[in-house]
């Protein structure tokens, strides 16, 4: 495998080091190949870019602010900025990707959209852009996730999407992804599959990373304005599949002095048997068409991860993240459910911002960075906490 010259670029066959590729059955080959051969040209088209930039500005609400969190900074004795992706339309970074992919789908002549969702954020972001463009939308969601994220199910339905229950396997995100892939196999001509993270067969990891890279593009400009330098000392983001982290890291990947911190969900503890810390517990294998680190048993059966957060309990990570970790370009930190809940309370009280449970994992890593008073730390505040209120209410004893 030829080494990548930039951390941003996979090889022609979609590899980041040993990770990536497109391990899809023949039934999916034409769909994936159509996307692979066209996505770069379509995204480079000035008309596409003009439409995308206008939607990001006027519909999504970009650029999102970079907010200096002074009370949080005082507590950790360093200089902390929050990249406010929680202020995007629909309440999380997920819509950066769906806006771009729906424009891509239109240019590919697709008339029907499918998606998978775990916590429901990506499903809502997909249902939203489908409503905007008048395209029919089917979202697959694990039966268990539909129970624990009921408000997002209601939002998707209100937006006109059909939410289909994934009853197979463990009935969570990985099974919803399986069902979406099967739908795409059954509808190879008219349907575009909007994957929600930097996972899946090439070109999806690259496509989604490019669409999310607007996050770090804005960070650089905003940091220059606020600190006099485009480069921070640390960028911190949570990782399930890794789309918000990919977006937050993207324009810093080739700046070796910026430390990139990927925060995983340790659940009840990394080695408790109830964890989603893929960088520690995972080994190389194939999941959803991509070679990456994944949680599996000794016989190569994919195991079910655990996190209180429905957005981080994916048994793999994007191949880009597997590669960055392997070569030491990023560092992984694992945060337990309880540490994340503590961080929810802390940000709510110190800054008046209630973060999503996924995002709280990134915030909980602040105490482990070793950042000094002169360091600049950017935390990607990937989502707001409204969707998690029920979980927070149930755990009020840990939040007070």
């Amino acid at each position, binding site marked *: 495998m030829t080494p990548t010259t930039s951390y941003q670029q996979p090889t022609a*066959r979609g590899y980041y080091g040993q990770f990536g*590729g*497109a*391990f*899809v*059955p*023949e*039934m999916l*080959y*034409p769909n994936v190949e159509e996307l692979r051969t066209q996505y770069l040209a379509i995204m480079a088209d000035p008309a596409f870019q003009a439409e995308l930039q206008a939607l990001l500005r006027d519909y999504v609400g970009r650029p999102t602010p970079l907010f200096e969190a002074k009370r949080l900074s005082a507590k950790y004795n360093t200089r902390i900025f929050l990249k406010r992706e929680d202020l995007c339309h629909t309440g999380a970074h997920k819509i950066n990707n769906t806006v771009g992919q729906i424009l891509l789908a239109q240019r590919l002549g697709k008339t029907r959209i499918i998606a998978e969702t775990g916590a429901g954020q990506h499903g809502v972001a997909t249902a939203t852009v489908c409503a905007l463009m008048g395209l029919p939308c089917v979202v697959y969601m694990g039966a268990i996730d539909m129970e624990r994220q009921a408000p997002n199910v209601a939002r998707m339905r209100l937006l006109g999407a059909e939410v289909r229950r994934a009853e*197979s*396997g463990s009935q969570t995100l*990985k099974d919803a992804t*399986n069902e979406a*892939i*099967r739908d795409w*196999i*059954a*509808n*190879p*001509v008219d349907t575009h599959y909007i994957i929600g993270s930097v996972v899946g067969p090439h070109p999806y990891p690259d496509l989604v990373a490019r669409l999310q890279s607007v996050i770090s593009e804005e960070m650089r400009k905003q940091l220059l304005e606020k600190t006099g330098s485009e480069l921070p000392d640390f960028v911190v983001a949570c990782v399930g599949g890794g789309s918000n982290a990919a977006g937050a890291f993207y324009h810093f990947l080739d700046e070796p002095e910026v430390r990139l911190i990927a925060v995983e969900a340790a659940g009840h503890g990394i080695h408790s048997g109830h964890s989603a810390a893929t960088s520690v517990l995972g*080994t190389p*294998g*194939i*999941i*959803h*068409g991509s070679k990456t680190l994944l949680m*599996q048993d*000794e*016989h*190569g*059966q*994919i*195991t079910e991860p655990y996190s209180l957060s429905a957005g981080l309990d994916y048994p793999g990570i994007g191949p880009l993240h597997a590669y960055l970790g392997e070569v030491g370009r990023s560092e992984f930190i694992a945060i337990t459910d309880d540490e994340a809940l503590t961080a929810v309370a802390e940000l709510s009280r110190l800054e008046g911002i209630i973060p999503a449970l996924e995002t709280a994992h990134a915030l909980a890593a602040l105490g482990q960075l070793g950042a000094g008073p002169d360091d600049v730390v950017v935390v990607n505040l990937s989502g707001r906490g409204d969707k998690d209120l029920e979980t927070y209410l149930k755990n009020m004893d840990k939040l007070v």
Partner: protein
Amino acid sequence: MDRIKHAFASKTNLLNTYFTAGYPRLHDTIPLAKALVEAGADILEIGMPFSDPLADGPIIQGSSTVALANGMNLPVLFEQLKGLRAAVPETPVLLMGYLNPVMQFGVEEFCRQAADVGVDGLILPDLPLAEYEEFYQETFKKYDLKAVFLITPQTSEERIRRLDRLSEAFLYLVSGPGTTGGTTLPDAVVQEQYFERIAALKLRNPRLIGFGIADKAGFDRACGHAEGAIIGSALIRALEDVADAPAAAESFVRGIKQA
């Protein structure tokens, strides 16, 4: 002797039956193989169960879940398959499954053990062609294991010809869009045109049609367009909740093969 070539040379209207190893009970694998062949199955495809079988519909996925819960895995399967050739000496046998369990077992070791127990070929739907040529082909050849490739209505002629050149067994014609066991049959005229388009290519390999073929009528219709057909989900369904799985398999196959 090449069992696959011999089967295609000596028979017409071949029935290839798929079943999941370890389903419905862990030790049904060899008795099922024997019963299927005695009833008239011409080729056997033994499924290696996987937790996340992307190309399969709910029935095969369900059987895989049961098989895994029964304790099926590759070491257990290879142990069972030591009795394969005593049970079915002449019938071509293929292992079908997904790449990840094979990778974790070790590709070379997997091929060595498969060849040792008398397996003739492999179907790994999520092994991409480019990866096969670069990393797997040599190992498969070393152990004389034939790779079977899938063709769908969307596969281009150029790609079909490339698959035909690489194949030394048969080509697996997926009947229409969808996963295994699909119940919504594609438009009959469109499907006919697809089968005829493939037939007109005069490929060097024989073809078997699979996905969504459930009964004698479907089997006979497929045989009008190819050398035979593959039945999987319908057989698995016939094994659900039965006391004697080999007997149920036998009567299922007799129902397909009766004149």
